């Protein structure tokens, strides 16, 4: 597939995703449901951007090792730090 077409398509999907996030935010669903929707779309958009705009799709897979390690460290940090709040 033509790369320019892919880039534009990804952009369109992310724009749609953003608008959908706002629609969900303004909807009458419960707070939990809204948050779930917004976060799920954000994760999808981030994956899309990482795959195509960070070019991981067209590069040696080994490069993905770096962000994966970094995200892993951050996840460990956030999880332990927030879990450890209580007494």
């Amino acid at each position, binding site marked *: 597939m033509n*790369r*320019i077409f892919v*880039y*534009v398509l990804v*952009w369109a999907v*992310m*724009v749609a995703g*953003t*608008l959908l*996030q*706002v629609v*969900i*935010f303004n909807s009458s669903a419960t707070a939990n449901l*809204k*948050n779930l929707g*917004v*976060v799920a*779309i*954000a994760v999808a*958009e*981030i994956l899309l*951007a*990482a795959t*195509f*705009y*960070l*070019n991981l799709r067209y*590069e*040696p897979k*080994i*490069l993905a090792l*770096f*962000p994966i*390690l*970094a*995200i892993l*460290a*951050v996840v*460990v*940090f*956030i999880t*332990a*730090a*927030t*879990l*450890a*709040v*209580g*007494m």
Partner: protein
Amino acid sequence: MAYQGFSIKRWLTTTDHKDIGILYIVTSIYFIIVGGSLAELVRIQLAVPSNSLLVPATYEQTVTLHGLIMILWFLSPLGVGLANYFVPKQIGAKDMSFPRLNAMSYWLYLFSGVLLLSTLFLPGGGAGTGWTLYAPLNTSLYSPQPGVTLAALAFAMLAVSVTISSINFITTILRARAKGVTWRRLPAFTWSILMTNILMLFAFPPIAAALVLLTTDRVLGTVFFSSFEGGSILWAQLFWFFGHPEVYIVALPALGIMAEVLVTFAQRPLFGKTLFVIELSAVTALSIGVWIHHMFMTGIGFDVREAFSLTTLAISVPFEGLVLNLVLTLRKGTIKLTTPMLYALGGIFFVILGGITGVFQGFIVLDYLFHGSYWVVGHFHYVMVGTAIFGLVAALYYWFPKITNKMYNEKRGKILFFISFIGFNILYFPYFFLADMPRRIESYAANPQWWPFNLTATIGALIFGPALLLTFANLIQGYRKGKGAEANPWGARETEWTGNFTGAAQAEEGVAADSQKEVSRMEENSPVEKSRFTYLPVTISVGAAVFLTGFVLFWPVAVMGLGVILAAIIQWFKDDVRDKYAVVKEAIGENWPFNSVSKEKVGVWIFLVSEVVLFGSLLTAYIYVRLRSPVWPAAAQVHNITIGTTNTLILLTSSLAMILALQAIRSGSLRGLKSGLIGAFTLGTAFLAVKLGVEWPLEIANGFVISGGLAPSSYFTLMGVHALHVGVGLAGMTYLIAKAFSGRFTAQSHTSVELLGLYWAFVDIVWLILFPLFYLV
């Protein structure tokens, strides 16, 4: 091209890894003399239960500065200095992958240290908070003196230096190995440095984040560390997520050195080299997951503490394995007890005691007594001073002939080793009997039973300190008056001595290759036609120091500093456009598994790792305070969602323009590149203009101001850091646009477009996280 003899200009402008290594080594030795003198003051103060040498405020500042200097400005920089000199030699690289950035790391390190020391001379003095800078003692309510802000900024400047240097080391080791230096044959010291730098890459962004938040607290009125919801625990989390890996950052190079020294003087291969590397990796990975053991007494969740007690015990298994590998190397060896060998063996002795006492603290129940006491001080001095200093001194002696071509005085070296070793134990062993004495107290009149141990320790300090000083004197004496050394006086077999990277000589019996041959070969391949000297790294670092000083004390000075930095960066770009600097050719050697990725791209990806961790740490702080806050303003009430959404769309489109620009030049269209870059630049500028020019004024007018609690604190700080990244990206684009309009990009040569594209996409992704978290959730 080469400067002969001593020349100030050479040392200010050099980008050669050996020169920079020497600069690091000499500077770090200066800092140990400063930090060591502070320690002697502390010990003399404590020689008797009640002493009037230091008043409380001075005492606390002495202790704080001692800790900061020794850990951050002495121990790890000395390791970095040795690595700078010997990692390229061990892997057969002509230089570090990015020589000018290497110089930049050094100068940032030096001037951050100068800034830190200068805090002592400010009104109110420096930080008296302990090196851990615990909150909320570190906030301006309890530590109003500007010295604390400046110390925090000096620390942040060091974090930048360390991050740049770790990117450089990792890229060099991944990309610049000579033919024959496969992963399997990578020397133990280089392995330890690789792991150290990976840890640095993960550990320093969190402390940078913590220091950014502390600075905004102290200067702009945010409330991260003065509020109950953030406060002590938030600081401790951020600090120790950095602080514990830092312990291994200090210890691992020493272990690598011990491995090299043992192998050479036991004349045996390292016992279980593969295992050694596996254990090293395991220690590295696990050390990121043990930090909460510093917080066992903070009253945080029971299960979390128990879990981290287990990870702490788990890390001791591979760590003990490392030590056993070293000891077992001696088993069938023929051992020459030279000075470096004695220091290495001494270091192993200390790592065993320091390691085992560390396990004690891993048990929460024992920590109930040990926490905050001299037992802990004893433990980490066995690790940091015993293991690290003895290991590093072993390296100084071991590589002395290689660096200076001279020989030191062996007899004096050995005598000084025994004095140091005995003095060290007299100094630190008594601490294990002081498990009930609190740290950082300047008198113990109420507890005279502590006196004998304290007096013994002080006597030890008066032996150990001078012995260490004489050790450096012995090295200097060796440099000035020593006899000429052979190229490989130890008969070592490792690559930095033999220059043989394919391993052919290692199969032969007891033969060290002619290292003279290696030297001449290196010279031949040096890129002599282009400059290898630059004033810009030192200029930028001075500018940064001036900027930070001005930021704290007098803002017009900050503007001056900023001007210097900008001018230097513009000059840097101009140099690049003109191709003024020699590019270190990549070795046509071992690159697996990065064979098809350029060193620049590897470098940017490693940089992005540090950025992920930086934003991750800031987000952790935000999520933490938000979850802890009983009330949080609804997003729709404080933010204009329409503006936020519009800005998201603007930034997304800017990213599209950037990637299309890259795609255009890939297929050779300079016109497409230009219009894409201009589009991306315009949209990026629009994003900033909307954010800073429309959105923030609106919010501030509605009373949503930065000092108005945790919600605006986190909003403005995180958005501000992101906006700063957008600004940096825009500056980069200006350079690309200028270069594109002078027609210097082609389908084959457009690396910088691709690199900035990666960065710009990353900044966009960060926004994709910030937007929902602040506006919609």
